[in-house]
Structures are given as structure tokens and as C-alpha cells.
């Protein structure tokens, strides 16, 4: 029975219009000639040109990318370890506290995480800058990574690992040759998630940074507080474009892989 009634079509159309129209308007007006953002005065790419001239924005973008690469890599290593410990680690002392510390940062308001880390850095006399933002971002991102990776670890067949051990693999070999390839997609999506979380974060970065390091969100926030500006529209458009291309590419790749895996499995069954 076909339940795709007019009601569903209308609610989907309106819903997706609501989700996408604001961003589409933003993109259109980034090509506006006029400095007055709300009045259309003809097509122009001059704001993109001005953006490329703007040293402050370029510096901030560079700092942001550095922070995101380092913090998401640290977060992926720590988060994968944490997930492995939670799913395969068995019992150990303080396990409840450990799982609490992994889940708590996910629901902790950003203002509190930021405030507490800042007070720590001041307490131990660490100069605030790129390093402190990296530490802060690694900490909350590792929790997201561990959730993503452990959900993959839970579903995977443990007997594969046991078979490798029985056949003479050492534990690290079994991890490298069997476990890691199987959980690799989850590890990669964990890294991507950590990377975007870091790129996007305003609140925690504002608390943990010092005068030497300004990230792009901090820069955007201080510019936007004064109102809408065409340069920020251009910057937003570039960021939206990068994310869209990234998400579509990764989902196509993973779809392709899944199709191939299924075919291989079917062939294996036939043989």
C-alpha cells in the first residue's frame, strides 16, 4: 500500500525548505555587489577577492586548520583506545568512573567545559594559545570518537579476533591485521567528526585561547556581532561548499565500498 500521501509530500517539502532556504539565501547574497547585504545590486565576486586579501581571516583559518588536524588525530587515537577498553577491556577498577567521564562531556554545556579547562590552564600556569585549544578539543572530541568506534566494535564478530589469535597472531598483530581493518570506517568517520567539531567550535576555543591564537569561529563571531556582512557571507559559502563536497564524497565512497563488500561476500558464499 502506498502511504506517500499529499500530507507527507507537503511536510517533507516544507521541512527541507526550512532547513535549506536560509543557507541558499546566504550563498546567493555572497555574490551581491552591494555592501548593503539585504539589497541586491548585481552579481559580483568581489567579496571573495576581499576575503583573500584579508590577512586576519587567512591567519585565523590557518590556526583553525592546525588545531583541527592535531586535535582530531589525538582524539581519534585516544577515543579508539577508550572504545576498545570499554567494549573489550573486561572489568577493571574504576570502570564506572571511566564510562562516566566518556559520556559526560557529550552532554556538558560548552560554557562549562570551556570555563573549567580555562581555570585548569591558569591554575597550572600554561600559556594559552594553540596548544591549549588542541588539548581542549582533543578532550571533548575523543568522547565522540569513542562513541562512534564502540558502536562498531559492539556489532563485530569477536570470533574473527579469536581465530587470528588461535592461528598464532600475537594480540597486537590480531588488532592490526583483523580488528583495525574492520573498524577502520568507524575510526575514519570518528576522525572526520572530531575534525568538524573542532572547526566549528566557538565557545570552548574562546575560553581556552590566548591573545596569540584566534580561530576562525572566534573571528567570525566577533565580526558577526556587529551585523551581517558580505565578507562573512562569502566565507560561509566557501565553508558550506567544502562540507557539502566532503560529506557527499565520503558517503559515495562508503556506499561503493559496501556494494563491493556485499558482492565479495556473495561470491565467497558461492565458492
Amino acid at each position, binding site marked *: *500500500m502506498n*502511504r*506517500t*500521501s499529499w500530507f*507527507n509530500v507537503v*511536510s*517533507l517539502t516544507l*521541512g*527541507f525548505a*526550512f*532547513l*535549506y532556504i*536560509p543557507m541558499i*539565501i*546566504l550563498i546567493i547574497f555572497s555574490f551581491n555587489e552591494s555592501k548593503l*547585504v*539585504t539589497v541586491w545590486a548585481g552579481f559580483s565576486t568581489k567579496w571573495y577577492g576581499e576575503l583573500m586579501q584579508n590577512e586576519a581571516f587567512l591567519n585565523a583559518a590557518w590556526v583553525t586548520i592546525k588545531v583541527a588536524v592535531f586535535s582530531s588525530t589525538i582524539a581519534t587515537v*585516544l577515543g579508539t*583506545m*577508550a572504545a*576498545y*577498553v570499554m567494549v573489550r*577491556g573486561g572489568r*577493571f577498577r574504576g570502570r564506572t568512573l*571511566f564510562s562516566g*567521564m*566518556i559520556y559526560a562531556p557529550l*552532554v556538558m*554545556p*560548552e*560554557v*562549562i567545559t570551556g*570555563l573549567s*579547562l580555562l*581555570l*585548569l590552564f*591558569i591554575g597550572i600556569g600554561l600559556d594559552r594559545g594553540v596548544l591549549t585549544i588542541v*588539548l581542549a578539543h*582533543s*578532550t571533548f572530541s*575523543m568522547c565522540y570518537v569513542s562513541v562512534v568506534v564502540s558502536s562498531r566494535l559492539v556489532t563485530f564478530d569477536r570470533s574473527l579476533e579469536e581465530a587470528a589469535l588461535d592461528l598464532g597472531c600475537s*594480540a597486537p598483530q590480531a588488532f592490526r591485521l583483523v580488528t583495525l581493518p574492520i573498524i577502520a570506517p568507524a575510526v575514519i568517520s570518528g576522525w572526520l567528526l572530531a575534525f*568538524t567539531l573542532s*572547526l*566549528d567550535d*566557538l565557545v570552548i576555543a574562546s*575560553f581556552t585561547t590566548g591573545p596569540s591564537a584566534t580561530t576562525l*569561529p572566534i573571528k*567570525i*563571531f566577533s565580526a*558577526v556581532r556587529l*551585523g*551581517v556582512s558580505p565578507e*562573512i557571507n562569502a566565507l*560561509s559559502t566557501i*565553508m558550506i561548499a567544502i*562540507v*557539502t563536497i566532503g*560529506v*557527499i564524497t565520503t558517503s559515495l565512497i562508503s556506499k561503493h565500498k559496501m556494494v563491493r563488500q556485499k558482492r565479495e561476500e556473495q561470491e565467497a558464499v558461492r565458492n
Partner: protein
Amino acid sequence: MRRFFLIATPYTWLLLLFLVPFAIVVKISLSDTALAIPPYVPKFSWDEGIGAYFSQLDFENFVFLTEDDLYWKAYLSSFKIATISTLLTLLVGYPIAYGMARSAPEWRPTLMMLVILPFWTSFLIRVYAWMGILSNEGYLNQLLLWTGVIDTPLTILNTNTAVYIGIVYTYLPFMILPIYSALERLDESLIEAAEDLGCSRLSAFWLVTIPLSKTGIIAGCFLVFIPALGEFVIPSLLGGSNSLMIGKVLWEEFFSNRDWPVASAVAVILLLILVIPIVLFQRNQQKEQEAEQ
């Protein structure tokens, strides 16, 4: 040895960068404010010992929070804004999730991606996009004036209405995804059975579909409510001076007033308030997991 290393590394990291900082917040919230760097006087000193510390505790900052009505008004207004916007998000999100779950199966992955895509896009940019739409000379007012619906521009930006719109917009994916996954699992023959047994479509929806998607609804509501309560970016960009939210108060207390002990006390109370919805959310998730097994 290897196992110890594997457990100890993430464990130590979280202890040092999550638990210790939080203990510092609690400690500073119990200290006295001072005009110094750092701007507080620690109350605890090892020479006097723990007994002396506890006898000195006066919870002065917490008393201050109850006396100055700015703070409890901010907590109340955060609670109100988070509750109303959660309900609005449910009203907007449910039909979308329902439409997705009832669409042709080959369409579902694409629709799913369309819901997730905004989630990967910068939060800040998505909030910013609404500033241009809602301002007095904004696109919404231009459209309404042009179509003749209104004669004078509506003031929406810098009011609570703008904050509601911002929260609904940015947290919508969090509401849609759990409801969609509950509805997708729902066996359609149950609805057909209800209709065969004489239910109207509407009452079948009310008596079968809604109860069976309950866990999704509850999960979605908490996923919106919990972050909305401590929200900072949305009220400071879209809200006005009178849209008080506790995240904004904490930020200003820290950066503008430089009153660390009060900011820490605000944080401690916010966290105590959040414990209740977080525990309820965890229970809901556990119930769902048990139901799956």
C-alpha cells in the same frame, strides 16, 4: 602491561582534562571574589586542614545567586526557552520524520543525507544565516511587505521569537533522526490492522503510531532540550538584551565582570539542574536497548 597502558592512557587524559578541571570549578565557586590576578581568594590551605576548611565554608557565591534576581530569572528563562523550543522542534520535526519513514525506500538514504548535511555545516554559520533573514530590513520583512501582508516591518531579530527560531532550526536534525529511526522500525501492518478493526486514520495514528515512536520522541526531546538549556551562541546573536539565558550570563560574568567565583557557582548550579534530564535520557536509552534485545 600492555593492557594497563591501553586503559591508563585515555583514563589519565580524562582525569586530568575533565575531572580535575571540574573539581577546580567547584573549588573556585566556594572561594571569595577579590580584585587580584587571579581574581579570587582560595579558601583552602593545607596548614589549616580540612576541618577548618569546612567550618569556613559559607556558600557566599551561591547565596549571592539566590539574592540577585538576575540569576534565578536567567535560570527560569533558560528553562522556559529550552522547553518551548523543544516542543516547537517536536512539532516541526515529527511530520518530517514521519514523511521520511513513509517515503519510498529508495528515497530514504538521500532524505537522510539531506537531514544530516546541515549538521556537518558550521553551527555558527547556520545561526548567522538567520540574522539576515529576521532583521528589520531583512529578507522576511521584505517579502512580507512586498506581498502586502504587513505595512510596517516586524521586529523579530533581538527578541525571544528569534531565539526560538534559531534553536528549532539548528537542533532540528537531532529531533528528526531518533524519531525517524523509531518510525522506520514500526511494522506498518499494525496500522493496517487498526484501520481494519475500525479505527479512523487519525485515531490509528494517535493510538498506534505515536505510542510506538515514543522512545524516539523522548530521545529527540532530550537531545534538543539538554544543549538548548546551556546555549550561548543563539541568544547572543539572535536574542535581545532581554532574552536572558544562563549560558550568556555565565559568559558575561566571566569575560565582562571577571567574577570567577560567581561564574563558577553559576556553572555548578547549571550542571545540577542538567543532571535530572540527563539521567532521564539515559534511562530512556537503556529501555530502548532492552526492548531491542
